[in-house]
């Protein structure tokens, strides 16, 4: 049986509630605004926060792109895309430039976003202080008091243990020099893209019932010490084995025939775009 759902799945009251929370989130950059996360047809923790944001934003003329760790074609991205399209009939795209709304799990696309675009990030754990303090009651107070010693201590302990900050993803950032925020599990490589971004960035945590935002042109600083500055993942000497790109976030793979380590663009749409450009040049130079 196929239910005849309302436009964008939600009833209008749910959309309004999410919209009000989103506007508050934009007005208080980095602050986690509580919202009444709805029951969704996908499991909590599988992108319901991002999905609810997308559904509250989307209109008939929007073009939607959904990515899951850089890929347009992985299961999480495809199922979310299908749900949104089935309930709205919007156009889908894989091309980053064509999209009005980009919902993403754990990556920010390689090509820079524009002021007409909105990036929606799915967040599993929105609280950057959760590892230090389990009680929501207490973390809310820490945020209120601008008490981020716990976050600093966490980084300090990593330096003591490993000689460097050992956050692989979700490295905490300070937004507008006030709130410390979890940027969602994006690699450190993507943290600088949030700083003074042209596009509005919305973050949604469905299971934890929080919405927060980074408005455009807002200062986003990754937490770091003077003598241990923030660094991103380095891919020095490596390039994508398909398109040859450097200066992008690369996945490390094993070439099964040769047993050697090879690298490949994590952002699949970017990689395909590069390949198409190369092919175009090749075709033009061969037949022209």
């Amino acid at each position: 049986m196929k239910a005849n759902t309302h436009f964008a799945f939600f009833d209008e009251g749910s959309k309004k509630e999410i919209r009000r929370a989103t506007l508050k989130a934009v007005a208080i950059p980095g602050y986690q605004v509580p919202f009444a996360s709805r029951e969704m047809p996908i499991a909590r923790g599988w992108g319901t926060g991002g999905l609810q944001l997308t559904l509250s934003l989307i209109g008939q003329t929007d073009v939607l792109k959904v990515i899951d760790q850089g890929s347009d074609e992985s299961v999480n991205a495809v199922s979310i895309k299908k749900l949104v399209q089935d309930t709205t009939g919007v156009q889908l795209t894989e091309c980053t430039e064509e999209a009005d709304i980009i919902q993403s799990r754990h990556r920010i696309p390689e090509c820079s976003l524009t002021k007409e675009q909105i990036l929606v990030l799915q967040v599993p754990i929105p609280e950057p202080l959760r590892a230090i303090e389990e009680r929501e009651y207490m973390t809310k107070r820490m945020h209120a008091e601008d008490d981020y010693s716990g976050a600093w201590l966490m980084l300090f302990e990593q330096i003591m243990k490993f000689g460097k900050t050992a956050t692989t993803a979700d490295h905490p950032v300070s937004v507008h020099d006030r709130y410390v925020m979890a940027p969602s599990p994006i690699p450190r490589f993507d943290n600088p893209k949030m700083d003074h971004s042209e596009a509005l960035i919305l973050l949604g945590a469905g299971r934890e019932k929080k919405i927060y935002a980074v408005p455009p042109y807002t200062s986003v600083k990754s937490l770091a010490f003077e003598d241990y500055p923030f660094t991103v993942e380095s891919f020095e000497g490596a390039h994508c084995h398909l398109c040859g790109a450097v200066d992008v976030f690369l996945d490390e793979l094993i070439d099964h025939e040769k047993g050697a380590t090879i690298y490949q663009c994590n952002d699949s749409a970017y990689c395909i775009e590069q390949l198409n450009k190369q092919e175009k040049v090749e075709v033009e130079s061969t037949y022209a």
Partner: protein
Amino acid sequence: MAIDQVHDLQYVYRKLLHSMSRPGTISSITEPVNRMDYSIPCSEALLLTAMALLDGEVTFHIVSDEHQELIEKISEYTSAKYASIHEADFVIVLREDKEQEIRHALEQCKVGSLIDPQQSSTWLIESSVLENDGEIVLKGPGIQSEVSLQTGFPVTLWQARNQRTNEFPMGIDLIFIDQASQIACVPRTTAIAHKEVG
């Protein structure tokens, strides 16, 4: 012809979000407003903005106390409940409201707490024609360098607003709506400077 509760309100929300995330940026909601035909004692753009944001879960307050009819209309159209200035989630200011009354309301309205700064009031203000040249210069998150804005909001009211927003994250967020169905927002993070006269 009536408006479309689903698509027109989504359209208005996106314009609001665009302007709220880029303070001082003027967005137009003329298209759905042109389709409205309500007899109400406020601008149709203001009613449409209220319809996009208000429902039975929130409360509103109208600054002037001479607008019983408008209170009833907004309650009917949105299901939102009327509340005192101390409790209201949304505060509505009309063109003809007196400066004194508005200032009093600015001093009384809720600004949230350090623990829950989102429990603050959002203002819907009928303004003179919005333009990006004029009296005040805005700076802050969402603004690349600076942007100037004309709202017709007098200096004393900006001072009262600055008083209520100087303890970030607590504060109020303002949405200006003019007769030409344009909207511009000034959230709590925005720093206001007045242009030197002369």
